[in-house]
């Protein structure tokens, strides 16, 4: 008799109690904008996963040049045109979606992992542990995040992986601070005292009692960060510190097409740019909806 997982509830299995009215998920479901963005992003995910099967030019998507077809404007055969190396833009944008999504997930996932762990340890143990972790956090926070990411990426060498690591390293301090503040108050709660009085050891307490109860603001922040992650990594690749050609990355594609904008070949930068814009916007709006659903005051129902 295991307790219900949130996914089970979400799927609305009739054998299981319906989505509990008044819960965060319930509010989220009623938020039209949030649902629309989720739908859109779901499509992006599906498209990204199925990219090789959705285009006849899969090899070009991966980067293989097709020089005879270069600079073709949008047409029936190439709805988004071709780029400087003759590669079909549809394929490129599709493959770029893969990069964009994995970038968002890895960056946010990594910073959340590092930040939550360090924040929970700092908040729960206090003392020198807290001091040490907070000083490290302060050091990282002293730099503007984009500059820090650029510096780290430059030091590590330009590549997709290094770009992701760089941004995650620039972002984890926010999560650490967020979680530390929450952990400080959660550790004084009576259920933590009760667990200690039973004899539960510290690390188990952190895992079982502290972390689940500090995650709500983390989710909100993470949802909003997904959009920023894509934009920031696009920024890095725009200046050459991210993935290298011939990889299909939207930021890279915008950069590659930059030289040809004035020459009338607008489609090379525009479509990847558009894709970037839509995806980041969807993530940002999604983040807003998550925040609204989580905030008891916005929900309106009396406590």
């Amino acid at each position: 008799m295991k307790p219900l997982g949130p996914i089970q509830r979400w799927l609305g299995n009739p054998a299981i109690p319906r989505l509990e009215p008044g819960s965060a998920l319930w509010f989220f479901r009623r938020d039209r904008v949030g649902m629309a963005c989720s739908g859109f992003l779901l499509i992006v995910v599906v498209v990204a996963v199925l990219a090789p099967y959705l285009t006849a030019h899969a090899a070009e998507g991966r980067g293989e040049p097709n020089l005879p077809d270069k600079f073709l404007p949008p047409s029936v055969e190439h709805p988004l045109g071709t780029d400087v190396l003759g590669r079909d833009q549809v394929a490129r944008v599709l493959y770029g979606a893969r990069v964009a999504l994995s970038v968002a997930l890895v960056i946010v996932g990594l910073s959340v992992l590092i930040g939550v762990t360090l924040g929970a340890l700092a908040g729960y143990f206090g003392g020198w542990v807290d001091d040490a972790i907070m000083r490290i956090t302060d050091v990282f926070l002293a730099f503007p995040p984009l500059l820090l990411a650029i510096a780290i990426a430059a030091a590590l060498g330009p590549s997709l992986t290094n770009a992701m690591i760089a941004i995650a390293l620039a972002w984890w301090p926010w999560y650490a601070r967020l979680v530390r503040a929450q952990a400080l108050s959660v550790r004084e709660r009576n259920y933590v005292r009760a667990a200690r009085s039973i004899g539960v050891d510290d690390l188990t307490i952190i895992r079982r009692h502290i972390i689940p109860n500090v995650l709500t603001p983390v989710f909100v922040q993470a949802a909003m960060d997904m959009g920023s992650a894509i934009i920031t990594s696009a920024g890095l690749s725009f200046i050459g510190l991210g993935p290298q050609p011939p990889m299909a990355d939207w930021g890279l594609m915008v950069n590659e097409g930059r030289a040809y904008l004035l020459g009338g070949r607008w489609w090379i930068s525009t479509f990847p740019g558009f894709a970037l814009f839509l995806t980041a916007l969807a993530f940002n709006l999604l983040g807003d909806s998550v925040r609204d659903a989580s905030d008891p005051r916005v929900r309106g129902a009396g406590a």
Partner: protein
Amino acid sequence: MTLATTHLLQIRGLSTDYITGGGILRRRRGTIRAIDQLDLDVARGETLSVVGESGCGKTTLALTILLLIRPSAGEISFNGRDILALDRAGLRDIRREMQILFQNPFTSLNPRMPVLDLIAEPFLSGTRLRGKALEREVARLLGEVGMSEEHLRRLPHQLSGGQAQRVALARALALNPKLLILDEPTSALDVSVQAQVINLLESLRQLHGLTYLFITHDLSLVHHISERVAVMYLGQIVEMAPCEDIFLEPLHPYTRALLSSTPIPDPDRNRSRIVLRGTIPSPANPPSGCRFHTRCPAVIDICKEMPPGPTTVGGEHWAKCHLLSA
């Protein structure tokens, strides 16, 4: 350490301080003496009530006994063992023998854990019971506190106040403790629910031979359930007596004031109320001499200079007041 074995818990000279201030610049630290040289014995199987208002240290006392706070001085022995000198293994053992029930079940139960996990937790860290056997044991405990299996999947916020407190009680009883400290267990509950919980506590006590340390401010409740009563003020016990004696013959002026302050649901009772002057002093800055002298309606000169020692008046009844020895 030789002890009378009738006493489950023996406390001598207990003092607990809170340190304030500190931080990276290590500003001047202040101390708040929350418990000041307290002596207390709790006999096996009895219900001892501790009565007092905010700042008297009753919750600190509970947390100190449970070793959740380290005292700065004194001795605590439980079942004959000095629990302040235990190693990790010993500490783990002792922890199962003493448990606590807090006032607000919605903050003493992890809001993200369903009832099954909440009651199973003590077993997970204290025993080898797992799987189906564990579930059976949890269901049995749940039945003992008057709830049914349908509640196993619920989260705390889906329970009523009374139900949540029962879950907290089931969890506290999981490892068969000998001593249960109850910190205002029914103050957050409605009167009719309180009645159910109090009856349940009483029947469980008899069934399992438990000892209760009952912390409360509700004097009518105290009268209903206790064998003995200890009255606390600003970190000290100022009076201790068998239950009837406290109500019939309160000695300490503070006890008298407490008794007269409690509203009684009887409009015909015309009582002269002893209204205390002023407010409860902060434990950070306790008054000199007898700590109660700033509010005492019967204060005399010596009260401001010397703290009174305990004066015994017949059998088990004592109080710390200069007026008694005068």
